[in-house]
């Protein structure tokens, strides 16, 4: 929760300085222009290589058109002419010329629906970025701590404003589970998305952003401001309290519930005090790629993974292998045009890695090497079939063999598991269970598949759906029969009400966001598992998410409200 003035960021209106230059500065400006083009070309060529290596030639060819537009001779001629004759600074000249082409081509480029178009905005942005100092024209610049408001936000922009004391973020599109959402939570920046009309925030000084309540208040009244200040004070106080004594997480009737953490960055892990935690239940390795805008080589990965393992000081760390899908690969490459590409739809998770086995091989090798420094587990994401599990294990076996040949030390007994996120794998669960050491239910994606909603809507309501609980219950049953571990690592586990349901259907291990640790820990201590278990029957018989919500809410109100 946060309060402050709004910083409205117009994504495509770059703040290009409109000043004139002296005749003796012309050459310098033209040189900067050449350098900017060269840099931008290099960037795009790297992206092109990435696409060629990891996807296919068709996608790589899209970049060819971008490269051509970047290097367009007519644009160069016009920009050079303006700088020389009108003495406008090169960024201004470039901006004007490109805007002109953009406007004229607007209709043409969009009229052929089946054809890929040239993303002129990306071309313009790239060059302007290189023409400016540290991205002043293209990245948001905060004059004071404020709430960032815009249509959307990219991971690199979020990283940028995090260094500028951003108070909170409000976007039109994005979603709780988007990269921006995950990043914001790890930076502990309040983030609200799916707000249709963001322009209404412009110019407002006292906006209260309440993430839990999923709302933003413009022009808060005196009373609301007081209410906010009070809540903030209580929150700060309670944080200080619970940070001290955490200890073992057990229910009131003494059943241990393991609470692990979901993390994405090495820097997040440094903020964890191992003496107060139980382990990392999900380490999202693809964020390494997002941070660096590329796929790091084996040694870079080894260094990152080993740091995490060492910092956790003998507590177990479960690494999830690269989970790339449309949104993730798209954000990694940071190219607008890919947002519209359906190609990436089914292409995520372990499938992507199996189609690009070198990727998986390299990652597994780095992980195995890191296993010499502490206990780890490895899990494969977005699994659809037994075949994928077998293929992945085979690759793992080959990597292990190679390490043996090279006499490299690693843990020979690393537990291997899979994420249960698809309907398909639920259908073949017994067979899959025979091949793995544990399951982890990824409720975010599982609910998408089971209930057919889009990634960018709020998850909260879907977490209560009886179908979802039914699937989890089935997974628990299968895991118990085959005597393998099972946990839930989706956002659902951070929600106290949904968590009640999880405990009722038999989950005893959850992995949650570090920011939710305190409230989950406190809630578990108040729960009488004996009383919760009968809820499973009611959940089974419910016909809608709302009904389940009511059941859980009722239990919570009657048993866990105050003290207890």
């Amino acid at each position, binding site marked *: 929760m946060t309060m402050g003035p709004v910083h409205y960021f117009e994504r495509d209106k770059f703040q290009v300085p409109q000043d004139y230059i002296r005749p003796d500065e012309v050459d310098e400006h033209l040189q900067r222009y050449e350098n900017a083009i060269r840099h931008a070309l290099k960037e795009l060529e790297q992206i092109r290589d990435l696409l060629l290596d990891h996807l296919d030639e068709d996608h790589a060819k899209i970049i*060819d*058109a971008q490269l*051509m*537009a970047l290097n*367009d*001779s*007519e*644009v160069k001629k016009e920009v050079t002419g303006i700088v020389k004759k009108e003495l406008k600074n090169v960024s201004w000249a470039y901006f004007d010329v490109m805007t002109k*082409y953009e406007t*004229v*081509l607007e209709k*043409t*480029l969009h009229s*052929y629906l089946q*054809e*890929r*178009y*040239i993303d*002129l905005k990306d071309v313009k942005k790239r060059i302007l970025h290189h023409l400016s100092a540290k991205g002043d024209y293209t990245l948001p610049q905060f004059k004071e701590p404020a709430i960032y408001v815009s249509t959307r936000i990219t991971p690199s922009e979020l990283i940028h404003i995090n260094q500028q004391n951003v108070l909170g973020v409000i976007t039109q599109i994005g979603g709780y589970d988007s990269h921006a959402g995950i990043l914001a939570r790890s930076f502990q920046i309040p983030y609200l998305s799916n707000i249709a009309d963001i322009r209404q925030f412009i110019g407002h000084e006292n906006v209260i952003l309440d993430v839990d309540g999923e709302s933003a208040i413009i022009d808060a009244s005196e009373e609301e401001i007081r209410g906010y200040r009070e809540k903030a004070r209580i929150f700060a106080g309670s944080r200080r309290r619970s940070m001290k004594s955490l200890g073992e997480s057990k229910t009131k009737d003494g059943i241990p519930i393991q609470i692990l953490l979901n993390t994405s960055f090495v820097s997040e892990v440094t903020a964890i005090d191992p003496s107060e935690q139980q382990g990392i239940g999900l380490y999202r390795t693809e964020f390494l790629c997002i941070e660096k805008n590329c796929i790091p080589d084996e040694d870079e990965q080894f260094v990152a993974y080993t740091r995490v393992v060492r910092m956790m000081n003998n507590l177990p760390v479960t690494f999830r292998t690269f989970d790339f899908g449309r949104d993730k690969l798209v954000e990694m490459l940071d190219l607008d045009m890919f947002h519209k590409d359906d190609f990436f739809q089914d292409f995520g998770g372990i499938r992507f890695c199996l189609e690009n086995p070198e990727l998986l091989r390299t990652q597994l090798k780095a992980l195995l090497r890191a296993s010499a420094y502490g206990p780890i587990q490895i899990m494969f994401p977005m699994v659809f079939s037994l075949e994928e599990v077998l293929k992945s294990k085979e690759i793992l076996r080959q990597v292990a063999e190679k390490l043996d040949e090279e006499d490299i030390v690693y843990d020979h007994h690393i537990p291997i598991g899979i994420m249960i996120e698809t309907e398909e794998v639920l259908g073949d669960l017994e067979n899959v269970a025979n091949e793995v050491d544990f399951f982890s239910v990824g409720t975010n994606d599982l609910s998408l598949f089971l209930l057919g909603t889009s990634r960018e809507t709020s998850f909260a309501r879907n977490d209560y759906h009886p179908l979802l609980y039914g699937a989890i219950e089935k997974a628990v049953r299968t895991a118990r029969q085959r005597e393998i571990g099972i946990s839930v690592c989706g956002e659902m586990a951070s929600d106290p009400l949904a968590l009640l349901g999880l405990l009722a259907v038999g989950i005893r291990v959850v992995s949650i966001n570090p920011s939710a640790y305190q409230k989950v820990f406190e809630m578990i201590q108040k729960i009488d598992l004996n009383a919760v278990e009968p809820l499973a029957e009611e959940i089974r018989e419910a016909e809608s998410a709302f009904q389940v919500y009511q059941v859980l809410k009722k239990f919570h109100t009657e048993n866990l409200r105050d003290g207890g």
Partner: protein
Amino acid sequence: MLQIPVKILNKHGLHTRPATVFVTKASQYKAEIFVHYNGIRINAKSILGLLILAVEPGAEIVIEADGEDEQQAIQELRALAENKFNLE
């Protein structure tokens, strides 16, 4: 300097895909290459310029080549256009 009229046979006219093929080829010649359409004369080595022309399917353009290898350029570019830029 040579000029030759050529019909654009691609289904959607000279849109992004064929235009990039055209520009790639035209850029290989030493000669300056231009395209005339609707009274506008545009540098054919510029993708954005060509796209602005928005040449419709079935429309006729004039390819102009001026320089050392103009003969070869004209012939090869004409053949490319007649072959729908090897796309369809």
